[in-house]
């Protein structure tokens, strides 16, 4: 066991996978020098420039060329420097990667991973803060993962690299160096599509993912101590496919569901979770399916004061828990 932060965990996952399988390459902007978040630090020394390739500044081509390479025996990990700059590659992800297997009647496949840092809380302003998971969770043919802890990041990234489908791998950038965690030394994977109950509870099911998992755990702690309310916190970890079974099982047990996500409230991924609970656990509900998310303004303004005002935080989550608990 060794203590690692999330960037180190991500670094190690790729490093170990590239050692294991020489079909795997990394491509993206500045990855040769280690990447702006240092996820590929030392890769060129170990694997050479061909397997850790600096690309021109052209996101559509980064993803598009990765798709092409994947058709010809390479397993590319494409790094998009910030999720906010993945939009030029939207077409490649939605029209190409996601549809290739389907449109060819299962005869072509596209084993790529597109890694990108996402999320706010780091004074990134409106172009270094966006949550993009809902765009891609909406698209059949892609898998979408959101990680915000070192252990999950390593295990899920390994699964993503080994998955034969295109995977969008979203790394919450505030979690990159915010905390360290014990990580097993050997190889391990976490199945894509499996949520984890990060805290057991009996009064309310709180469903969340990404950085909001940490805020939610804090809020749950507060409620336990101050109100004696027992909150179960489920981290989805994967938003497509997502672990409906675990979520519904928990809601059927507690009778109350609070969904917390960082993205804009309208059409955010939590809306899908809420709709599913409303439909499939209706008979068990003992209060309104409730969401805490960001208001519908571009996420996020640069000023710390404005950003804090917009984003969900432990206090806002605690307040929502109290309201829901009162039913």
């Amino acid at each position, binding site marked *: 066991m060794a203590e690692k932060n999330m960037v180190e965990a991500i670094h190690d996952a790729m490093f170990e996978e590239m050692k294991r399988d020489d079909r795997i*390459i990394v491509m993206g902007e500045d990855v040769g020098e280690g990447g702006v978040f240092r996820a590929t630090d030392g890769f060129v020394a170990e694997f050479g420039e*061909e*397997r850790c390739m600096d*690309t*021109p500044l*052209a996101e*559509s*081509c980064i*993803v*598009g*060329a*990765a*798709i*092409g*390479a*994947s*058709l*010809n*025996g*390479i397993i*590319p990990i494409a790094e998009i420097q910030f999720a906010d700059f993945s939009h*030029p590659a939207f*077409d*490649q992800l939605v*029209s*190409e990667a996601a*549809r*290739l*297997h*389907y*449109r*060819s*009647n*299962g*005869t*072509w*496949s596209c084993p790529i991973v597109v890694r990108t840092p996402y999320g706010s809380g780091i004074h990134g302003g409106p172009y270094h803060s966006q949550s993009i998971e809902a765009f891609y969770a909406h698209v*059949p*043919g892609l*898998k979408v993962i959101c990680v915000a802890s070192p252990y999950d990041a390593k295990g899920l990234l390994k699964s993503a690299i080994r998955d*034969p*489908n295109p995977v969008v791998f979203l790394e919450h950038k505030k979690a990159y160096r915010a905390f360290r965690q014990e990580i097993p030394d050997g190889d391990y994977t976490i199945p894509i599509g499996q949520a984890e109950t990060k805290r057991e509870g009996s009064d309310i099911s709180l469903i969340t993912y990404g950085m909001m998992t940490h805020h939610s755990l804090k809020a749950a702690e507060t409620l336990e101590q101050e109100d004696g309310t027992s909150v179960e916190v489920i981290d989805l970890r994967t938003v497509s496919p997502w672990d409906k079974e675990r979520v519904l099982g928990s809601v059927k047990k507690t009778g109350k569901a609070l969904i917390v996500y960082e993205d804009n409230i309208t059409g955010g991924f939590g809306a899908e979770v809420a709709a599913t609970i409303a439909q499939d656990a209706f008979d068990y509900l003992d209060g309104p399916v409730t969401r805490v998310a960001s208001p519908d303004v571009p996420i996020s303004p640069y000023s710390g004061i404005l950003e804090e005002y917009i984003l969900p935080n432990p206090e806002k989550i605690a307040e929502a828990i109290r309201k829901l608990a009162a039913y």
Partner: protein
Amino acid sequence: MVSVKEITGAEGLSRDQLLDLYYKMLLARTVGQRERMLNRMGKGPFAVTGEGHEALQVGTAYPLKPGHDWIVPYYRDIGVALTIGQTPLDLLLAHLSREGDISSGGRNMPSHFSDPRLHIVSGSAPVATHFPHAAGIALASKLRGLDELSVCYTGDGGTSTGDCHEAMNFAGVHKLPVIFVIENNQYAISVHVRKQFAVEDISIRAEGYGFPGVTVDGNDVLAVYAAMKEAVDRARRGDGATLIEGKTYRLVPHTSDDDDRRYRSREEVEEWTGKDPLVRYRNWLKENDVADEAKLDSLHEHAAREVDEATEQAEKAPTPKPESALDHVLIEERLAG
């Protein structure tokens, strides 16, 4: 019979190869016409074909190694698909979206050619998104030390996209074994090429990417073949990419949903009909004593028969099972019905 060596301009092709070229062009023409006819008969909801482009398509596909080199075509490339090895039946099954359609099992529109065994890569409808794929495939060939090359096709309109630029730039930087073929038929649906780019020959863009570009008469199959052969040799030598622009004209509307009388004068269409690449090549074959009238007629009959038989077979083929619409969203997973 004259020996081929004596035929000037035959580009080193044997008599059989010269006739094979003609046959492939005929087949492409016949399949295109057939698809448009089936559409008018109400049997296939949509047709997009390439009549007029045959010299450019067959001439560029001919120097390639089928199933070895990679083809990343666009929707007009019936002649490319047939030259590489798809059959009229393959294309007609796709046209009628039958179960056995190798390209997509009835999921994609017709003329979205795909066949992994032939290294023909499935494409989408957004124009030129396949350009980075061709670059990526060629990158993989290079990384893996394979003696393959990739060929990517689009029209004059496709050259205006960001992906076209991004992919050519990428191919230039990495000196990739890829050939970009532009089928410049002077229109992107109704938009004239003068509104598409401000240069006469789009091939000059190649210089900006650091590899050679060439413009050829796209209705002269042997000129096309020669230009392609040179590009293929360059790629195989490891000397990188080439941009080939063929100037041509589509002799039919953009698709079965288009009425080209709105934007093209009949005189203009007439003029280009006079430059029909099939007629031109047929005359060349006769003038150079490669084949006589009777031999060429027999090839026409043969192509017609082949396409008739394929049509009959395709029409009899079963339609896809409705529930197959849920298959192949992700590998090894099927959505619950």
